[in-house]
């Protein structure tokens, strides 16, 4: 296994871990923060895959804008999931 593979495996584990945590958490604010982390891990993966354009968009959209939009929706709908 080359260092590249190890890096890949680490990122993929982080992605799946984040997704599972999002599924389990009842606190929506925490879930949104985890989604931000998830997007940033994906962004690293894409730099590694030779897609800098996609990585930049993902960093701005997934980790930034989507999270902000979700937070503002949360302030109006309540933070806890029943």
């Amino acid at each position, binding site marked *: 296994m080359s260092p590249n593979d190890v890096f890949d495996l680490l990122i993929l584990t982080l992605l799946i871990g984040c997704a599972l945590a999002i599924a389990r958490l009842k606190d929506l604010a925490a879930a949104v923060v985890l989604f931000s982390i998830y997007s940033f891990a994906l962004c690293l993966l894409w730099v590694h895959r030779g897609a800098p354009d996609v990585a930049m*968009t993902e960093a*701005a959209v997934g980790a*930034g*804008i989507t999270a*902000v*939009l979700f937070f503002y929706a949360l302030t*109006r709908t309540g933070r806890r999931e029943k």
Partner: protein
Amino acid sequence: MRRVLALAVVLVLAALMMAGVNQLPPPGQADQPVHRHVAADYVAGGAQAGGAGNLVTSVLLHYRALDTYGEVVVIFAALLGVLLVRSTGGPPTRPPSRLVPVSPVVDQVVRLMTPFIALFALFMIVEGHVLPGGGFQGGVVLGALMILLSLILGPERLRGLLPIGAVTWVRAAAPLVFLLCALAGLGLAGWWFALPDPGWLREFVLVALELAIGFGAAAALTGFFLSLAVDGHH
């Protein structure tokens, strides 16, 4: 009960998809179908035909221009939908729960970084045809900057940046300029979305398209944000 059923559905579907992806050629080899058909042509002739060293921009604005036009229209339609949902009737709104005031550190850092982020976004948009970047990439960075600014200045101040008439035009800029370029291609070269021939004119059209897409995307994102952040009717 429902959970078990859902889990069963998901597991069956996942098993099917696993079986499917195991039949795919392993990723990472240059002789796969993905790299052989159109992609090989695009890599070989993309810089010439699209006038762009960044092949992604070349594919977006030349080979797949119609798709990109559709995407621009989708963003615009989503913005229209968001504004419509927000502005049509409904019961009076409850003010959102009080937000914590922004700490002075965040405030100062955002103020300090604003010119640099703006310059970077503009650089990505204008140089998007030769370096990583382009209309959408720069546009989302610019949109993120606008959202940051409205977090520290307040949405009302942000709204005062542009007169209301100009906002409408910037929001519609991407579909309009794209349509104009498509028509210009039809007139000059004979087919829709054709890029004009001399190199300088082609570069000019590319930069114009990317500027329109970038500012249009930034305006749409800011519109999404303001619709969620500011309540009530204006």
